[in-house]
């Protein structure tokens, strides 16, 4: 009797496992281990074949549900600009309810929006932008040059000093006439046009702001973008409705619902069951498992790079001050392993500390690149160093890609004879370590404020980074970066950038690691979806 019961229970468990773990809908998912035949782009960010045939049900839909890992919070950047709390999660709302002066396309080039064209005057200290005269806020008021100037002046008044990189060099903005805006610079900044695309300065209505104030604007934002903000249910959902009078034409998708779903598995279950149509920043490993009959995904090079900061400030007391030790560690970085292990094979190795597709990025052959993976050479450098065998810490955020990278690098360092300890910690602990300089190595991913090498200065000239370099190195970097920022001749600027990047590699100030891909997963019937380096989504381009 007991044997029979045991047999029945075992069969029951087996049936349950098969039912739970089986392929949804009995469909063949095909090869999920390699490139994945359900993706729709080849690192170009363009959406191609694979989602052209929509079902009849899809063509009658006018709503899209988007899953994001973090809930959008700030809808009025002039009040709360660029704090760490208002990062990428707000972009889905900001870039669709507001217009920006210019947009950044998938290749990193500026494309006209409210601004049509610009000229540079006064030796790079004045920028003049001609704006369109057929744009209206959703309350019917016309967008004027005064609104544009007001938007920039207001954000500049409120922006914290650390976030001024978003509008580097700007002193004030003024309206020359109804369709011409003038930007006055305190210092030259060659990458300034890129600042017009950053999330910090959406175009707001001066009249409406004076009427409702900052809190009123946050509660009921008014823009001239393709969508208007509808109901916001905290923690649950946010709705946007199409602006039928948008100067660029009425969007095909009439309603957009944004739902915060933090769990990656749940995001993909919701996509495959049809509860959501799009996942922003989709997890790569899960994209590879998507059922191609239900969903597609796209990817492109992102504006993010991963790097390992090396403590080289003599005041820190770290053994890392020894240059030979730093070089030994640099030789332990196997970028191919990192791209496979961290980016599922869809990223690129990083050889200098910038994104090669940024405007103003020098060619690799013009720079001294980071050391290649070579354990024998690492051992030679180690032999020449004064390393005493005590543990060296690698700080990283727990559960992040940086932690995966740290584990891979730790393995190689141990093989070379370096006693490395991975310290996977929460954000608070890593920021405390960074601020105090109490780390040997720290792995972080960094996304440039501008899609331009000019954003180097937003990092390497700040106090936190002064803690990790010798005074001499910091002074050198500061001087060169200021010169690079002000250089307006493209070739001379590239040469300066190459000099800075080479210096960083030669002195092992940081070790570039990998360039992750930007991803987006979506219902296969949805058209016009493309991956964007900065995860910016222009919903008016989408349709069923």
């Amino acid at each position, binding site marked *: 009797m007991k044997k029979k019961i045991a047999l029945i229970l075992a069969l029951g468990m087996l049936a349950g496992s098969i039912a*739970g773990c089986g392929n949804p809908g009995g469909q063949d998912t095909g090869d999920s281990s390699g490139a994945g035949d359900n993706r729709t782009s080849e690192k170009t960010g363009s959406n191609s074949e694979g989602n052209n045939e929509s079902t009849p049900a899809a063509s009658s839909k006018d709503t899209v549900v988007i899953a994001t890992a973090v809930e959008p919070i700030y809808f009025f950047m002039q009040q709360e600009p660029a*704090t*760490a709390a208002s990062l990428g999660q707000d972009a889905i709302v900001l870039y669709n309810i507001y217009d920006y002066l210019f947009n950044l396309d998938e290749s990193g080039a500026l494309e006209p929006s409210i601004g049509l064209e610009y000229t540079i005057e006064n030796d790079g200290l004045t920028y003049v932008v001609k704006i369109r005269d057929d744009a209206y806020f959703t309350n019917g008021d016309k967008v004027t040059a005064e609104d544009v100037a007001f938007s920039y002046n207001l954000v500049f008044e409120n922006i*914290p000093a650390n976030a001024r990189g978003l509008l580097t060099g700007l002193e004030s903005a003024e309206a020359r006439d109804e369709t011409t805006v003038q930007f006055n610079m305190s210092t030259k900044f060659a990458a300034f046009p890129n600042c017009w695309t950053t999330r910090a300065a959406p175009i707001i209505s001066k009249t409406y702001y004076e009427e409702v104030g900052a809190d009123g604007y946050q509660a009921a934002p008014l823009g001239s973008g393709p969508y208007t903000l509808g109901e916001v249910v905290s923690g649950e959902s946010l709705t946007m409705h199409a602006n039928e009078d948008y100067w660029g034409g009425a969007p095909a998708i009439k309603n957009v619902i944004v*739902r915060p779903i933090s769990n990656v598995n*749940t995001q993909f279950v919701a996509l495959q*069951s049809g509860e959501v149509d799009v996942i922003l920043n989709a997890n790569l490993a899960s994209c590879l498992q998507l059922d191609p009959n239900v969903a597609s995904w796209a990817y492109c090079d992102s504006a993010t790079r991963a790097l390992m900061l090396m403590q080289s400030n003599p005041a820190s007391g770290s053994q890392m001050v020894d240059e030979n030790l730093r070089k030994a560690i640099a030789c332990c970085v196997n970028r191919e392993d990192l791209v496979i292990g961290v980016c599922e094979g869809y990223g690129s190795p990083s050889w200098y500390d910038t994104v090669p597709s940024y405007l103003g990025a020098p060619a690799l052959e013009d720079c001294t690149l980071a050391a290649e993976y070579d354990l024998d050479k690492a051992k030679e450098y180690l032999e020449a160093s004064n390393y005493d065998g005590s543990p060296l810490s690698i700080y990283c955020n727990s559960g992040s890609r940086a932690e995966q990278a740290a584990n891979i690098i730790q393995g190689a360092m141990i093989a070379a004879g370096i006693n490395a300890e991975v310290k996977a910690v929460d954000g608070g602990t890593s920021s*405390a370590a960074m601020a105090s300089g109490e780390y040997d190595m720290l792995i972080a991913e960094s996304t440039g404020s501008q899609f331009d090498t000019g954003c180097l200065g937003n990092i390497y000239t700040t*106090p936190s980074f002064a803690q990790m370099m010798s005074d001499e190195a910091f002074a050198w970097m500061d001087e060169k970066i200021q010169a690079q920022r002000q250089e307006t001749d493209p070739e001379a600027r590239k040469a300066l950038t190459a000099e800075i990047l080479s210096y960083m590699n030669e002195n092992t100030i940081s070790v570039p690691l990998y360039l992750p891909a930007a991803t987006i997963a979506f219902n296969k019937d949805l058209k016009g979806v493309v991956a964007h380096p900065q995860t910016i989504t222009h919903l008016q381009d989408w349709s069923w």
Partner: protein
Amino acid sequence: MSMVKYILKRLLMLIPVMVGISLFIYLVLSLAPGDPARMILGMDALPEDIEALREELGLNKPLLIRYGLYMWDALHGDFGTSWYQRFDVASEFFHRLPNTFWLAFIANAFSIIIGIPVGIIAAVRHNKPADYVVTFFSLLLCSAPGFWLGMLAQLLFCIRLGWLPSSGVGSFAHFILPALTMGGGIIAINMRTTRTWLLDSIRSDYVRTARAKGAREGRVIVHHAMRNSMLPVITGLGMNFAACMAGTAVTETVFAIPGIGSFITTGVKTKDIPIVLCSVIIIALMVGLVNLIVDIIYAVVDPRVKLGS
């Protein structure tokens, strides 16, 4: 009268509990590494900006003064504003509370509806196939981690069968999977507790006497054995409900339910002290009240229990 005194005494006892819990949480969060001002402004913030924000948030005051000021405001109903998201934390807490309440309530309802009858069957059919099956499943449910159970349930019921939504709130259907996932362990505990205590009662002299007097088996079980064996189960129900209210973080994350579990998790991750303190104080208060209600039910179920005596 003694009952009223007892309730008042218990309510007064909640005050030191509240102070102890809130002080402990405040100290832990404040002494943990990481400056909230730096976390809010970012890694590359300038020292003067950080200093200004620290001043604005009151972080430059001594720790106990900060705690005292917070509690004074809390006593006046002001639980503060989120440092990151700038909303009123008490309003946000109560906005999210119904989702967690319904999740905990439905999970406990499942545990009562399924766990207790099945436990009774197991006890009545002691050492028979039904008992073995119940024992097996209770062990399975006890040992299966909630998040794993939840993810398997999503694959089966949301993708393969398409019967239930995988995430969010808005209807009863949204709560079925999360409640079953969270309630799995409680169902198992209720099965085991009911079975164990009912078996104990069934073997008692007064049950044997009832049978000897010719009472029907159903009446013996329901009216004699069960009533006595239910006290530990009722105690467990109160504890389980309290645990559910405070322990929904994983389930809420897996099923994207905007409840207080995920609210607290966000607060802890970002060291947003107003969020965590407000949530902990209110939850502690609710748990204290639930336990008080359980004790009152105790007295109703078992006449031997005299509250306040």
